[in-house]
């Protein structure tokens, strides 16, 4: 039986008790895909990329939330590699969830997004960089947080033009992801008036992470791979799975810098990054996860923060209000990049500065000074509105 509290009792309660706490229910939907282990022994294999960042994001939301009666509830739903993601997603939606952080590869991401139950959901994709998913294969319920391949290649393209290193020797792997990034590199070359003077592929798969000998072979193979090419300024390497790219540094036939997926890389986050209070984020993450923050951790953190920010500003927990706020001109999320980040309405890609990081230190941040855009400087990276092939079904 419910007993109404006496007036005296009610008065002694803190003011916050008067309004019930608003719960932000977020589901982190992921899969344990087998991931390539890092080629360098300096990088430890990490099997919980993404989710650790999301946990820190939830904790950050809740530090703020306790002042305003809001709480982020993060449910972790990570399937084994052979798990049935569609069946799991149906269960998640059936339980009334609609705010999803998707740590899924392209095929699984689309399978979940295309479920009828997902139509009104907000799915924040923290894993993919595929340009397809932002172009022909875009979905009205999928927001992309990680920079696309095109944005990454353009970031490097701007930097190389600024340096006048415009003759590129392109070396790429042969896996689908390698080819997708390679297409973006070619697009960047033509956008910024640079030239790909030679293009070679390197296909290699069998490999153990550690061997007793081996550098002698590497030396010879990389020298062979890079000799007898026309004069060039940089090697642009595309090796998504870290099979050989790392070996190009200092092993090329000619003394040239390496950029692309190894050497100078274009990323949303890097462990050497400290500016714009980035150091505080790095410290907070490392204290929590006992390892350095990866790019996917940053995206996971950002996804949970975006939902948290939308609730903080609107006071709403329903998908419709949150979505309309996230897509409004008022939406702006601070994420240690100096400027606020927001979504491009034409393809739901998060516009953002991109870090250009060497193996041990930050080199620059794109957009590079001098690359202008009439609306947002960051829209000089990736597919701009006039070039988009994304047309959401009405």
């Amino acid at each position, binding site marked *: 039986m419910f007993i109404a509290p006496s007036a005296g009792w009610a008065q002694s309660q803190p003011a916050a008790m008067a309004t019930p706490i608003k719960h932000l229910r977020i589901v982190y939907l992921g899969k344990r895909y087998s991931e390539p282990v890092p080629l360098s022994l300096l990088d430890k294999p990490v099997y919980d990329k993404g989710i650790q960042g999301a946990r820190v994001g939830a904790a*950050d939301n809740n530090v703020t939330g306790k*002042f305003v009666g809001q709480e982020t509830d993060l449910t972790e739903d990570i399937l084994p590699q052979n798990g049935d993601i569609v069946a799991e997603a149906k269960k998640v939606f059936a339980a009334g969830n609609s705010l999803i952080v998707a740590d899924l590869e392209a095929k699984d991401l689309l399978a979940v997004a295309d479920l009828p139950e997902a139509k009104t959901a907000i799915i924040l994709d923290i894993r993919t960089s595929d340009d397809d998913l932002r172009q022909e294969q875009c979905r009205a319920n999928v927001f992309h947080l990680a920079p696309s391949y095109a944005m990454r290649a353009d970031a490097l393209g701007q930097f190389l033009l600024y340096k006048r290193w415009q003759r590129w020797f392109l070396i790429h792997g042969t896996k689908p992801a390698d080819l997708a990034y390679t297409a973006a590199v070619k697009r960047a070359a033509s956008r910024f008036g640079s030239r790909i003077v030679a293009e070679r592929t390197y296909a290699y798969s069998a490999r153990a992470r550690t061997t007793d000998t081996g550098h002698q072979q590497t030396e010879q193979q990389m020298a062979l791979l890079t000799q007898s090419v026309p004069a060039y300024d940089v090697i642009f390497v595309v090796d998504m799975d870290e099979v050989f790219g790392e070996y190009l540094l200092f092993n090329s036939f000619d003394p040239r810098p390496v950029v692309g997926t190894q050497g100078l890389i274009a990323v949303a986050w890097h462990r050497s990054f400290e500016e714009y209070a980035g150091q*505080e984020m790095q410290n907070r993450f490392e204290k929590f996860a006992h390892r350095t923050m990866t790019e996917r951790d940053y995206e996971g953190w950002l996804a949970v923060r975006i939902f948290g920010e939308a609730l903080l500003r609107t006071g709403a927990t329903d998908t419709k209000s949150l979505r309309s706020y996230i897509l409004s001109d008022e939406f702006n999320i601070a994420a240690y990049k*100096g400027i606020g980040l927001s979504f491009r309405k034409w393809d739901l890609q998060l516009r953002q500065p991109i870090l250009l990081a060497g193996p041990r230190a930050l080199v620059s941040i794109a957009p590079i000074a001098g690359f202008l855009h009439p609306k*947002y400087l960051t829209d000089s990276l990736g597919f701009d509105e006039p070039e988009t092939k994304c047309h959401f079904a009405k």
Partner: protein
Amino acid sequence: MRLALSIALSAAILSSQAALAATLFVTNERDNTVTVLDSETLAIKKIIQVGARPRGIVMSPDHDEIFVCLGDDNRIDVIDTKTLSVSRSIPNVPDPELIATDPKGERLYVANEEQSQVTVIDRATGKIVGTVAVGGEPEGLAVSPDLKTVVNTSELASMAFFINVKTLKIEADVLVDQRPRVAQYTRDGKQVWVSAEVGGTVSVIDARTRVIIKKIGFDIPGVQPELIQPVGILFSSDGKRAYVALSHANHVAVVDTKTLMPIAYVLVGERPWHMALDPNGTKLYVANGNTNDLTAIDLKTLKPIRSVNVGHLPWGVAAMP
């Protein structure tokens, strides 16, 4: 004899000018130093070695001491303004970023950036007398002229917290725009101005009702809007104008405190964050982080007078009469 007299006379004039000049103290985040300058000549008088990562800097109201936050050493170094050297340190203050003193100079308030906390220190003894749990990445601090309230901003929560000085309890939280860096009470104590670096605005909050009266936006021809990043706020001696440092826009905005409208923008060095007003009210000194210099602005003409090198990544400034 006549010559000697005129030398003596000019020496007397010189020394009286020197007495009028203020002494400026600038923290150099990258150098672990505080640069001391003469405000008239802008010549460097001394470079004081302090602990690691000096950022926030404040002078005691009696002008005797300068307090410097040392983020990477978890302590406050105290500079004696007579000897221009570190006379004592206040230890065990975790990751201090910004520091404020109450108008009487009895208590110090420190934002502990990584602790989501504000630490209250008794100035005389250096003892911690209390802590307040606030929002994430706290930074800005301002004590009300009536000594009753201290306002703290949280960069992560985008909030300004109004803390009761006696109870150290939060009385109100005001949601402002993204990444609030600095809070300042107006000279009359009726308003609190809070800058939002990423939001690009200054929220003017009624100090009594704790409601936002207005958000001031800025617009500089030829400067991309996302580069307009308000950080430092200072009020003129007569309270009629506010000066707002706009970081990556490389300008200081001048705002009419009556109309709450910007009336001018003064070009300074790159990434101006914090500022100090000359004690005689005629000049403003701006620390420019990315150009390693300090710009002096003539407040009558609103023109920059000169910029001088001070050290690497100058962060904050204090001016002593």
